């Protein structure tokens, strides 16, 4: 098709002004996809939805798949960096009195490890997976608020760089990943290290919140026609609940870190008991976020498991409704538990018992989920492939983590092992078992969709066993050494205590576990370059992301699917029902009603723009500067305002006008 064809069709007279009342310019209507042959449809849509070429074009991209890919790669790199921190710590601890790393560097190492893993790896990677998959799974062409999504990515990378550049300058936070006052306060935390923690946290959480809002609106308003609430895939439910938890939990950590920087920078006394403040207030605020944080990481992982199991068990998930209700219940209960992180602070007795009880209550919905998964496998004809292996690894590891968790929920035991390696072992079982194993399974499962190629199954099996053995070798003995009394966050220990053999073993396990990630990285690269072509639906799975090509085109679906079942591709084996009537010369997608997903509006999705990047730079520079002077907020306001106006001011595209 020549460009002459494009202009002649663009000049078609407007055929319809039905909805225009009042002072609205009539819609300059463009060509529609109705009855268009596939080849021209692809040409039109590819032209309309493409990311512009060149560097500026790449930096302006608002395609959710492009942004998600960057997010995924960045988060994986942060995992590697955090892993290197851990390996460094373990080498130092592999024998008594080793002089490799001094206390000051060790403090920075475990803080950077915790901060990187929690804020720069675990949360971003689950959100990134959602950015990629949710729009595809609900059958739409882009995420809601694509520019906000791009902005979120830029904020995230620059926040991560900020932390790691500080580390390179030996200016990294050294007060633990939760930076308790008074240690991090103005009196005991001189220098800029705790300020780096505070501003980096506030800043990067802006990106989590932005992505959460975009995800929620995508799920509520952009579902394909017919995808009523009961037909939403479980993974999408998981991401929806998670995003709500983010919206209500993340502000707490931003408030905490903002109060901290105010105390440090302008002399407020919020956490200062000598002037009417309170140090425990910090812990309440922090854990109001910190406990739900665990579920922010864990819930999407359960969504992944709920996608992988039906695909390999060859039947829809058993107890779909039960699984959805459990997700929602876990989301609510995750807010009732924060105080169990503070048993050692001497809370009133009754309060503590209440929190013990509610900590145990959350076992019920989690139990329901596990039961439904096992029933699905039991009733299906499971095909054991690498993604499913990692799901088994998740079951095994997470159950151990859950058991030690129930132990810790009892106040007397918690007081005994508080701040020992028993706790370190527990939360790595929960975090790695509950989140990293499902993520690895998900990587093998969705890699073919993202790249169009398969990862090696043989290497995948090696990877699985190496990871499982390495992980348990590294972390199981930590329970034991913790019960023996080895405290966490110490840079060395004396030889007389007899802890050296077990620590050497732990370190060897840690190296083995790290190597499993090297193998994984090799498998990723090898698969992307040499893997066998995957086709649209290599696992013969049932949800919508498998209805389009691998990798999907910029516009995701040439025609928006119409959904009739939770597993639409299994229900409509002959031909997928689709909708027509959308414009092909503007970025149109369907807005539907919240509960029933009746198509309601032909909405225009935002076009590429460089302004989100510029806005992120303006906001980031303001945060960086604010470490040195509060006036940064005043100076930063003008550039931020300018970039935001640039972002929202219409440029005259059809996408802006209607």
């Amino acid at each position, binding site marked *: 098709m020549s460009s002459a064809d494009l202009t002649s069709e663009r000049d078609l007279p407007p055929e*319809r002004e*039905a909805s*225009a009342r*009042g*002072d*609205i*310019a009539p*819609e300059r209507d463009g060509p*529609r996809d109705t009855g268009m042959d596939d080849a021209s449809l692809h040409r039109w849509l590819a032209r309309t939805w493409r990311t512009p070429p060149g560097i500026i074009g790449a930096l302006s991209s608002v395609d959710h798949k492009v942004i998600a890919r960057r997010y995924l790669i960045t988060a994986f790199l942060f995992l590697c960096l955090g892993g290197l921190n851990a390996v460094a710590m373990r080498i130092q601890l592999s024998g008594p009195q080793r002089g490799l790393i001094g206390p000051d560097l060790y403090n920075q190492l475990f803080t950077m490890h915790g901060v990187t893993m929690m804020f720069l790896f675990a949360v971003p990677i689950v959100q990134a997976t959602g950015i990629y998959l949710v729009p595809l799974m609900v059958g739409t062409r882009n995420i*809601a*608020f694509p520019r906000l999504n791009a902005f979120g990515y830029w904020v995230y990378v620059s926040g991560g760089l900020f932390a790691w550049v500080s580390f390179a300058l030996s200016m990294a936070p050294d007060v633990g990943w939760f930076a308790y006052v008074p240690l991090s306060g103005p009196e005991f935390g001189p220098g800029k290290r705790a300020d780096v923690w505070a501003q980096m946290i506030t800043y990067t959480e802006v990106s989590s*919140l932005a992505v*959460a*809002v975009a995800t*929620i*609106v995508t799920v*509520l*308003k952009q579902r394909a*026609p017919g995808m009523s609430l009961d037909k939403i895939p479980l993974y999408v439910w998981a991401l929806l609940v998670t995003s709500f938890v983010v*919206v*209500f939990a*993340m*502000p*707490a950590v*931003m*408030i905490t870190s903002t*109060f901290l920087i*105010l*105390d440090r920078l*302008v*002399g*407020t006394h*919020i956490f200062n008991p000598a*002037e*009417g*403040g*309170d140090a425990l207030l910090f812990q309440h*605020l922090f854990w*109001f976020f910190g406990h739900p944080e665990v579920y922010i990481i864990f819930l999407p992982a359960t969504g992944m498991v709920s996608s992988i199991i039906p695909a390999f068990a060859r039947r829809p998930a058993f107890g779909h409704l039960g699984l959805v209700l459990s997700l929602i219940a876990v989301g609510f209960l995750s807010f009732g538990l924060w105080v169990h992180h503070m048993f050692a602070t001497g809370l009133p007795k009754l309060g503590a018992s209440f929190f013990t009880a509610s900590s145990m209550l959350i076992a019920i919905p989690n139990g329901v989920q596990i039961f439904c998964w096992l029933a699905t496998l039991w009733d299906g004809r499971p095909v054991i492939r690498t993604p499913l292996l990692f799901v088994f690894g998740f079951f095994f590891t997470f159950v151990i983590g859950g058991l030690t968790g129930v132990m810790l929920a009892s106040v007397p035991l918690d007081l005994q092992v508080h701040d020992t390696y028993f706790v370190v072992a527990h939360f790595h079982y929960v975090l790695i078992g509950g989140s990293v194993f499902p993520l690895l399974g998900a990587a093998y499962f969705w890699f073919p969709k993202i790249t169009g190629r398969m990862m090696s199954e043989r290497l995948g099996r090696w990877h699985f066993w190496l990871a499982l053995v390495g992980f348990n070798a590294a972390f199981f003995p930590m329970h034991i050494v913790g019960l023996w009394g080895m405290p966490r966050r110490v840079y060395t220990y004396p030889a007389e205590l007899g802890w050296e053999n077990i620590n050497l073993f732990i370190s060897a396990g840690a190296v083995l576990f790290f190597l499993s990630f090297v193998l994984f990285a090799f498998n990723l690269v090898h698969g992307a370059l040499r893997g066998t072509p995957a086709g649209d639906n290599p696992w013969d799975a049932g949800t919508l992301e498998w*209805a389009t090509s691998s990798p999907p085109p910029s516009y995701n679906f040439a025609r928006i699917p119409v959904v009739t079942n939770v597993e639409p*591709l299994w229900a409509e084996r*002959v031909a*997928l*029902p*689709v*909708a*027509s*009537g959308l414009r092909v010369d503007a970025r149109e997608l*369907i*807005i539907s009603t919240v509960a029933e997903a009746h*198509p*309601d*509006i032909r909405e*225009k999705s935002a076009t590429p723009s460089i302004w989100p990047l510029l806005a992120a730079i303006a906001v980031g520079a303001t945060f960086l500067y604010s470490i040195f002077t509060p006036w940064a907020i005043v100076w930063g306001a003008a550039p931020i*305002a300018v970039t935001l*106006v640039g972002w929202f*001011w219409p440029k005259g595209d059809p996408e*802006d*006008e*209607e």
Partner: protein
Amino acid sequence: MNQRPAIDLADLPTFGHGPRSPTWWGTLGFMALEGMGFALAAGAYLYLATLWPNWRLSAPAPNHWPGTIVTLLLVVSLVPNHMLNRYAKQCAMGPVRIGMVVMSLLGLAPLIVRWFEFPALNIYWDTNAYGSMIWVLLGLHTTHLITDVGDTIVLTVLMFTRHGYSGRRFGDVGDNVFYWDFVVLTWIPIYLLIYWVPRLG
């Protein structure tokens, strides 16, 4: 995979007001998270207030008048705000332009009074934790006030350009109305916390 046409959506409208539009939901999402921020800050204030029996920590009482004037201005502004919403729904350009100008002015007015509200607190943020908390609460609300007034002014200018004649812009006006309600609503509990709750005990 194979496809079969099932429905035709050519006749759907290209914009909608209120809960029909995704922007409204996005605005609601941001209100939820900002509201959570307000709630937590208020919670922190109450936590400290109950912790210390002599709350206000022997600081002088604030002069409530600037705050009360701000409150009155904000409450009064709700009336034109909702008239504006009606005009936006009707896509009536003339009244919407007037309404936007009025709302810009009614946004600036409390902001000016707010300038006098800070000194009327009769304490500095670094005097004690009570001073810190009321400055924080007032500052948090002022940030919202400033950003929303800025947003309103930019949108007002936009409505006077040719870009104004679009359903989407009228939808933006509606969302702006919605957000202003939020700014007014969040002020009420903060006003009570700063000026009246300490007088109870």
